[in-house]
Structures are given as C-alpha cells and as structure tokens.
C-alpha cells in the first residue's frame, strides 16, 4: 500500500511555469508543456500538473468538478451526493491518452454542474461557499473520492509522472485557454500520490508551488478554524485555502494578501513611509498566523488573472518575461525562452513582491 501524503515528510525541489494572455487569446496547452520539458531535471517523475483558464467556454456558467475515484463504488457514492446537491448538466470521463509513462491511474471524471436551487436556498449560504462545503465534504467524508478541481471555466489536470508526460496524458494540446500554470514535482521521501500533485485548487483559485513551508502547522491550525480541512497534509494545500480565505471571504486585495503571506521583516517595515508602515503593520498583526515562512515561489491562477509571488527571503528562483500582451513566468529563464524565443523584458521579482496580471477586458463573461 502506498503511503499517503502526510504519513511521510516530503521536502521538494520542483518547477513552476505560467503563461497569460492579457488580451484573452486562446492558447493551446502545448506551449506550457514545452516550458516544463526544458526544466525536466527539476522534477523526479513523482508529480506533474497543469491548470488552464478559459478552457470550457461552452460550459462557462457551470462549476467543472474534476474528480479522482479509487473504485467504482467510490464513484457511485460520490455521484449520488453530487446528484443530490447539484443539477448535473454533463458528465464524462476525462479523455486521456494511455502511455507507459503514466500508470496506476484512478478513475478520472468530470462534471459540469450547478447548485441545486432549493438546496442552495435552504443552506442559506452564498453559492461559492456552498460549493466549497460540498468539495470539503467529499474530500473528507468519502473514501476513495477526491475533487481536485472545482472552478468555472477552468480545470486542473494532474498525475504522478513527469509534467510533460502528464500534459500528454491529459491531451492538453486539445484545450485552449488564456492562462496556464504548470508544476513539476520533486518529492524525495514518498512515492507521491495523484491527489498530492499540484496544482491545488478551490473554486477558481489554483496554486502551484515550489518550496517547503516551515509554518505549515501554524497556518493549518488557523485556517481550519474557518471550515477548511487540510486533507492531504501537504504544505501547498494550505496556501490555496489561505488565498481563498483572505481574498474571497475576507475581501483583501491580492497585493494585501501578498503582504500577509510574505510579510516584510519588521526591520524592512520600519524603513517604509508612514502610510505604508501603518498598512503593513496592520496586516502583519491582524493576520499573523497566516504569515508563510520557509522557501516558496508560487503561481496563483484565478478567474481573469494570475499572481506570482516569492517568499520574503526569496529562497526559490522565479523569473518573469513579457512579449506584446503575453506574460510568461517560470522557475528558470530557459523556460521563458522556450515558450517565447523573442521574449523582450526579463526580470526577477524581489522576494515578497507580487507580480499580478489581469485580462485587459473580461472577454465573454458578463
């Protein structure tokens, strides 16, 4: 029996990459796969994954659940629950291309769904909170079922394997989106598990992460007070919930969120102008339990945008490049250049300094 995440310790190296079209152009998943190929040595074949945004225009008003099942009975039980809580518009297996490089796959299903009107009204929750609670319910209460993607017009695709092989396995060249993120994993002490691959997602937020969070347990204890359950016991999962809590539930901007999770040192804050000092002091004091320490470079994907952020000490590498309306981000410059050989501006953001990109106009969405 493979050990699950959390039963063993997992230090990790990892690679991240992202691309974003500010004009909302449709870009096939093939480009982001190439970025991961050139950073192959940063992963060890025990996890790879991608998140694409704008990939389900025909179902853009429905939540797209991507679910791993370990057995047919897990699927039956979970589908019964989904049918109770949601109106199901479409369901199917996620198409994959069999390959000797990707083995032991679980059952992988996709559902386009909308909360059941009466259930939602009776729950007295807003729609997104309703979705979060059903996802947490499935992931914590149902053995062998795991919802790994739950946003609208976006999807996460992940597996145990090298990222470029995972991309081919999920046939990502057949999807088109305005934004893609990717991750190659290097867990060194565990066999890795499909659910433990990145991205980690909740609603439309997805996180890919290179690093290791020393504050994991402090962050977890705090965030679990707000109804989240860290089911995987990997550090990245907690970042996803922190972002959801700070941005969606607390209403912080992404810039403020960055100042919470990668707060500057007090000595750095002292040197800032008065207004800035007050702002940073307030955020650090109010959300002190959500300061993330230890090395990280993360890419946060969300509906209509992307944020890149390094830990405040910048213990992981990350570079950004631009060309026309495109923004490219990766652990290594070579990955930027393989995505766009004539890339124009290349720079490395400072530790704790978020890079936030958004669509110039919300294309198609009301």
């Amino acid at each position, binding site marked *: 029996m493979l050990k699950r995440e959390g039963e063993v310790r997992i230090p990790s190296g990892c690679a991240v990459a992202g691309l974003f079209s500010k004009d909302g152009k449709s870009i096939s998943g093939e480009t982001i796969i190439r970025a991961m190929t050139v950073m192959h040595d940063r992963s060890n074949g025990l996890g790879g994954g991608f998140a694409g945004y704008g990939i389900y225009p025909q179902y853009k008003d429905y939540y797209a659940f991507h679910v791993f099942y370990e057995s047919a009975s897990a699927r039956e039980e979970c589908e019964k629950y989904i049918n109770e809580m949601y109106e199901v518009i479409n369901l199917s297996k996620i198409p994959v291309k069999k390959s000797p490089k990707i083995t032991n796959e679980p059952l992988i299903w996709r559902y386009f769904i909308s909360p059941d009107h009466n259930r939602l009204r009776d729950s007295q929750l807003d729609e997104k909170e309703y979705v979060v609670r059903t996802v947490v319910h499935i992931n914590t209460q149902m053995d062998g079922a795991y919802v790994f993607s739950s946003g609208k017009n976006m999807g996460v695709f992940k597996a145990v394997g090298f990222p470029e092989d995972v991309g081919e396995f999920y046939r990502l060249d057949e999807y088109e989106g305005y934004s893609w993120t990717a991750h190659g994993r290097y867990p060194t002490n565990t066999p890795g598990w499909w659910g433990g691959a990145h991205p980690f997602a909740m609603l439309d937020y997805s996180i890919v992460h290179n690093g290791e969070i020393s504050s994991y347990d402090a962050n977890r204890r705090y965030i679990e007070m707000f109804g989240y359950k860290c089911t995987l016991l990997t550090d990245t999962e907690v970042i996803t919930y922190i972002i959801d809590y700070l941005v969606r539930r607390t209403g912080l901007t992404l810039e403020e969120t960055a100042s919470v999770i990668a707060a500057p040192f007090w000595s750095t804050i002292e040197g800032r102008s008065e207004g800035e000092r007050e702002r940073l002091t307030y955020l650090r004091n109010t959300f002190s339990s959500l300061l993330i320490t230890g090395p990280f470079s993360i890419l946060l994907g969300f509906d209509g945008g992307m944020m890149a952020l390094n830990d405040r000490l910048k213990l992981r590498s990350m570079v950004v490049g631009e060309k026309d309306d495109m923004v490219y981000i990766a652990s*290594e410059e070579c990955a930027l250049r393989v995505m766009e050989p004539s890339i124009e501006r290349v720079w490395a953001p*400072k530790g704790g300094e978020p890079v936030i990109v958004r669509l110039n106009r919300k294309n198609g969405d009301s």
Partner: protein
Amino acid sequence: MTVDARGMTFGEINERLRTADEATVENCLGQRFIACGMGGKKITVNGTPGNALGAYLDGAEITVYGNAQDAVGDTMNDGRIIIHGSTGDATGYAMRGGEIYVRDSAGYRAGIHMKAYKEKLPVMVIGGSCGSFAGEYQAGGIIIVLGRRINVPIIGNFCGTGMHGGRIYLCCDEIGVHLPRQVKVRPAEKEDMEFISGYIKNYCMFFSDDYGEIARRHFFVLEPDSENPYKQLYVLN
C-alpha cells in the same frame, strides 16, 4: 569545435567539451553544469545556460553571450566566467578562487559563502546591482558592484548578513539601504582603489565600458566588524 546544444543533455555537452581546448556551445537552453570542473580551456556559450554554470570550475575560461541562471560558478576553484548579460540567484556561491564578471545585474545572494585561503582569492565584479543578501555569510574574497545603468539601489536588504571575512566594494554616492549591524562601512581609500583597479579594468575591457569614468567615482568598502560579530537572523533556537 562547435557544439550545437539543441536536444542535448548536459552530460552529452560536457563530454564533447572535455575533448577540446577551445569550444563554442550554440543554442544552449537550460542545460545545467556546463563546463563543470573543467580547466585549461576556453569555452564560449551562446544562449541561456542552465543552473550551476561552471560549478567547481578549475581554470577554464567561460564567456556567455546571454543571461545565466542560478548558482554561476558554484564552488569554483580557479578560472574565469564572463557573462554578457545578467545572472540569477546565488552567483559565485561558495567560490574559493577565480573570477566572475557579470555585465549587468546579479540576483539574490550574490557571493554567498565566498571564502579565501592562502593564495586563493575569489573575485566577483557585478556591473549593475545585486539583489538582497549579497555577500551573505561571506568569509573571504572580494565582491565589487559598479552600479552601471541601474535605476534601483545598488544592493538590496541584508547585504553582508553573517559576513565574517572578505570585502564588498560598492560604487555609489550613498548606499541607500540599511546594513546589518555587524557590517562596517567606510569610504574607499587610495590603497583600496589600487587593489581593485585591475579587476575594474578587466570589466571595462570585457564589456567595453569607460574605466576612467568609473575610477573617478566614489566607492564604499564594506567589511565585517570584528567587535560586533554576527549572531542570528532567522530563528532563535
């Protein structure tokens, strides 16, 4: 000899380089450990070499036309690395000899853990600016930062944190950022400038810059304060 790196692994590239006294690597894109441990040869790299370019270098001269990534010259012992572009984090990580010249800027932790021993004196010249933690835990050797063509402070925060040997020379009128308490700052004197002039001349020769103009500018010298040694930054155990 010319090596077309397209589709090649770093092992294949290095195997070819070992057989030549002089070689050019074309289309390099992300392959790590280029020229690792090599001595007695000249290597030109066109493209973007991967991490740990010239790690453990032992006398070879590497010239890169393009940017380099992280950990250039990691633990290098001897030789020279010349980068016509910028470098990523941890440039000259733990280098113990030889010289690194970067035309533009270096990322975080340039010169971390540099050390000197007897006749070994590692030297790093950065043309632009350095990110935070330049010279972190520096134990020896010299880091020269020239501040050419930059619109940011010449160094970031925490420069010289844990420094207990060696020197950092900064070409600027004011340092502009807070320095850790165990680092002493003073204006450079005539002997200091004489000591580093050869390295600045090299920089100007490699990258066609104006030595006379740089030599007239103001330099600071950063040294460890032996009366106020480094304690800790990260955690109290």
